[in-house]
């Protein structure tokens, strides 16, 4: 499709693109976009994904597996990563930091010319409110929690590999959601179903999100603009921040569920989150905790971004509005219900 116009490469040769972590929501959306515009797409992931493309199975922490997948590739969209809310640092470090090092180093060796790394706005976030914020430099020393810290280190590794022969761009989508999303939408709906969804504070903090199709198009746009943008990091959002309560409610409404009634004052949520951080870390619990300090901050303070530079640089704009996104989410839930008795 390429509606937002990522430019084809000169010469007209088919571009061979490797997408890591293609079983994820955004990974598979990128694969479909690239395929639709005629690129030759291959994927690297741990489990078979059922996509109609060349599949390399393997962990990005396994350098040999990555090097194998990289053979004959022109461009890489590196999506794979560990995005859990809790867990030991070593797990994050292995997948996110070492995995990214493997990807960029083997890419350089394989003669890849463009690499887009999927990062996170949390890499530059030290916990304060973000109100129309620019994309600051990744700061592992001040990033909150293992996930953000590992993504920050990984972004520095990726952007550090930017060179004349290989352009590297980091794209930081903020809270991707859409039909089939197990991360944000899935967790909210699970909690709403079990009556555990709470509004932190007034629920009025403005939060940026991005609809899945827009995120995928931004990544493809970044691939097209990589030579001009090498070495840079850009936050991408829908440019339509909403109060956190409205986002939660609209997801819950789309899923056809009751609106949340529980309200937790922000200080309580934050303190509770800090306790949970320690307990979950100490006991090495793998399941999702009810609250983490990072999550409390995410829910209780504003997070929205200045998108002017991003839109100029990527020559990209979101094509799906929030309203349209919520409509699509609702139809998806309805069709899911219809197919699952």
């Amino acid at each position: 499709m390429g509606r937002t116009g990522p430019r084809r490469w000169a010469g007209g040769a088919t571009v061979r693109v490797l997408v890591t972590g293609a079983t994820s929501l955004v990974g598979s959306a990128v694969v479909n976009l690239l395929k639709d515009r005629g690129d030759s797409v291959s994927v690297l992931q741990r489990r078979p994904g059922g996509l109609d493309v060349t599949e390399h199975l393997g962990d990005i922490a396994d350098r040999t597996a990555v090097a194998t997948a990289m053979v004959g590739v022109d461009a890489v969209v590196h999506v794979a990563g560990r995005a859990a809310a809790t867990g030991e640092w070593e797990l994050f470090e292995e997948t996110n930091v070492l995995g990214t090092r493997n990807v960029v180093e083997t890419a350089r060796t394989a003669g890849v010319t463009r690499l887009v790394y999927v990062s996170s706005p949390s890499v530059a976030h030290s916990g304060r409110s973000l109100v129309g914020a620019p994309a600051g430099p990744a700061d592992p020393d001040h990033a909150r929690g293992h996930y953000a810290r590992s993504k920050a280190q990984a972004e520095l590794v990726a952007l550090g590999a930017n060179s004349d022969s290989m352009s590297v761009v980091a794209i930081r989508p903020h809270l991707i959601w859409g039909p089939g999303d197990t991360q944000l939408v899935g967790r909210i709906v699970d909690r709403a179903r079990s009556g555990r969804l709470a509004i932190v504070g007034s629920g009025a903090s403005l939060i940026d999100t991005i609809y899945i199709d827009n995120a995928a198009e931004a990544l493809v746009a970044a691939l097209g603009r990589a030579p001009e943008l090498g070495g840079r990091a850009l936050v991408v959002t829908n440019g339509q921040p909403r109060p956190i309560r409205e986002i939660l409610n609209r997801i819950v409404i789309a899923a056809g569920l009751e609106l949340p009634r529980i309200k937790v004052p922000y200080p309580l949520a934050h303190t509770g989150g800090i306790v949970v951080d320690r307990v979950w870390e100490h006991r090495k619990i793998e399941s999702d905790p009810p609250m983490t300090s990072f999550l409390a901050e995410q829910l209780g303070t504003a997070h929205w971004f200045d998108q002017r530079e991003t839109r100029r640089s990527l020559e990209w704009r979101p094509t799906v509005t929030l309203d349209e996104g919520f409509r699509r989410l609702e139809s998806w839930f309805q069709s899911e219900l219809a197919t699952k008795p």
Partner: protein
Amino acid sequence: MTSGSTSPATLPDPGLEGLDPRWSRLVTTPHLDGVGRTWHLLDNQVEEPRVTLLCVHGNPTWSYLWRDVIAQAPADVRVVAIDHLDMGFSERTGTTRRLDQRVDDLCALTDELDLTGPVVTVAHDWGGPISLGWAQRHKAQLGGVVLMNTAVHQPAGSPAPTLIRMVRTPGMLDQICEKTPTFVRGTMALTRPRAARPIREAYEAPYRSADRRKAIADFVEDIPLDESHPSQVVLDTIAADLDQLGDVPALLLWGPSDPVFSDLYLWDLAARLPHADIHRFIGAGHLTPEDADVASAIYPWLDQLDGAVPVSPADQEREPLWTGLERRSGDDTLAILEMGEDGEEEWVSFADLDADVKRVAAGLADLGVTKGTRVALLIQPGIDLAVCLYACWRIGAVIVLVDAGLGVKGIGRALASANPAYLIGGTQAVTAARGMRWPGVRIATMSLGQAKKRALGLRPTLPELREHGEGQPTPPAPTSVDVAAVVFTSGATGPAKGVVYKHSQIQAQRDAIVDLYDIQPEDSLVAAFGPFALFGPAMGIPSAVPNMKVTSPGSLTAQALADAVRAIDATLVFASPAALRSVVETAGEMSPLQVAALTRVRVLMSAGAPVPAALLRVVGDLMPKAELHSPYGMTEVLPVADISLSEMDAVPDGNGVCVGHPIEGVQVAISPLDADGVPTEPLTRESGIVGEVCVQAAHMRDGYDRLWKIENEASRPAGWHRTGDVGHIDEADRLWVEGRIGHIVTTADGPVTPIGIEHAVSELPDITQAAVVGVGPAGTQQVVVVAVPTSPGRRATLADEGLADRVRAEAGEVDVAAVLIVPSFPVDKRHNSKIDRTRIARWAERVLAGGRVGRP
């Protein structure tokens, strides 16, 4: 010369807040004192500059004072900011240097610097006399002088000499200035708002030990308070020679909240430099360059020095303001009727009014009032006000009008800025004037006993002026280019500003209103709207002032209005929307006679705030024969445009409020907004372009009083008035107003104006009022709608998704990030119709960042 400790000049400590180390240099004047002296100065070292600013600090500061002036300098302006010897980081010479020596020092330094091209001196505090001494010796090179909170003379009535004498008592001087940093710290304590700690520390940096502070005490000691002081004659010479700078452009920048150099010193300097441009930074104190953005006044002022003087459009000759009255000087019929409480009435005929005006004019002249003398009129609309007003105009005195709604503090501020020589008012006003020390010789409008007169410090009273003027010849009249009035705006957006009008401009305003409503000699006017209450005599028609409280237009009842209409068979009614609302509410209490009186009204005009069509429609029911008009304008130019109810009903939907077609003789153009919501030039009349509404008219203000910077910013291009309103012109040449410049929301997709969305949202059945505000950094703001529902709860909250959807539907293309519901809006204290958007925006910003909700 007493000897003190010596030390060489040094560069400032690194890392001082806001100070670029590259500006610092040391310069030696080899022959000074026979041994050579070394100076520290800040110098941006621009080569071949268009102009050089020579910045001279006072006591106890240093060149750091000018860091923002250097930082903001255009590429072709050189800025040299010196540290006096023994001050700042310049050499400690061990000598005592008096004023004459310091002027010599500065001349020696500039010789050494070899400044080329024109030089403009910029000085603060005791740097003022030194810079003027330099200026008088460099007239050939002098491009202008800029002075801030300084003096060349101790004007009578200043408390400063007492303060200085106190500091100079034996033992005190050393203790305060030298042995301790009290004087340095005390000066920093005068900053308003208080300067941040790193800045205070930077000011103290060169004065950390007693041996570095000796010159601070010397400076204080060098202030001449009597003839025997060695520097008195030097200062007197500098002051006397100011008249030789009559052809040198001068700019006086002032912080009025200065306990040392109060406004008295500004008026003294202004009298010595009558051609000077003046800007008073309301709220700023003694350290003018620290408290106010002086650079943003200095550089535009320099720019316009080379430019051509704007020519005001040639205007036709018009009748003087008193001619309409004079023409009826043999007419014994009613000119003005004043309606009091309980049916009391007081009236005056044209013949008596004309005679009284001439008497009082002669009486004022006898008192010493001449052309240009400022006379504040703190009198309620009515006969006394008309007499004093036309008497002042008749002899060329400048009337100062202050909206009573400003409150005691606001009136005091306005009067301090206008500085009238006389103040005429009722007992209440003259009592307040005495208590609050408002400027001006006080004149009461009524007779008072001698004891009471003495107690209020009154010179004459209005009846005495009449006596003195009786039989005296009428003094010469002013011409139409003489200044007629300083009118203070309501101050809805910051401190009230004095708007200056010339006679020609008020004449043109009178004629514009006469033309617009086709006013004939047979008409008669009920004026319940301040500015127009004064025009009856000028238009030569009878007028009546209904019984109401001046400070509260909402106190006008339908009965009071109808009584006034009935008393003079009025054909015209001028009233504010607030007054009309109250009239509509009390309409049921009218007697049949009162109801009948209103049916004879021919024109109803309502100005002062946007008038909703619904309100006019209800008023129309009370005045079925009246054409209902709502003119658009502001204190600076009124009317600009006019719309009738029938036109309002015929206008298609559009973004904002349609205020109608510009009236005859008024030019309206739009200054298009750029992507960041900043108005740009050239102006355009093209339809559909959104921007700042700019106006040009013969009845436009001449300028702002002692607010050079504001006047300059509001007068671009030259000859135009920037209204501060945002709007557009439609295909039918009608003007639409979409909000205030300051209320534009600057989103990543361009500027969003508030009024259109607000009106659409408040049309929702469950919403009464809405405000559109922006949150986030300029240029990437999010649009937020804050609304008051018809049945408000007790707490502010987020709107539910259903209401949010309906609000967003009204906003159309504009993406609304959040909809907040509040019990009520904070309103501006004095304008119960104007909601305080700044406060709402601040509140929304806090809530949407996750802060405490509370209420706005």
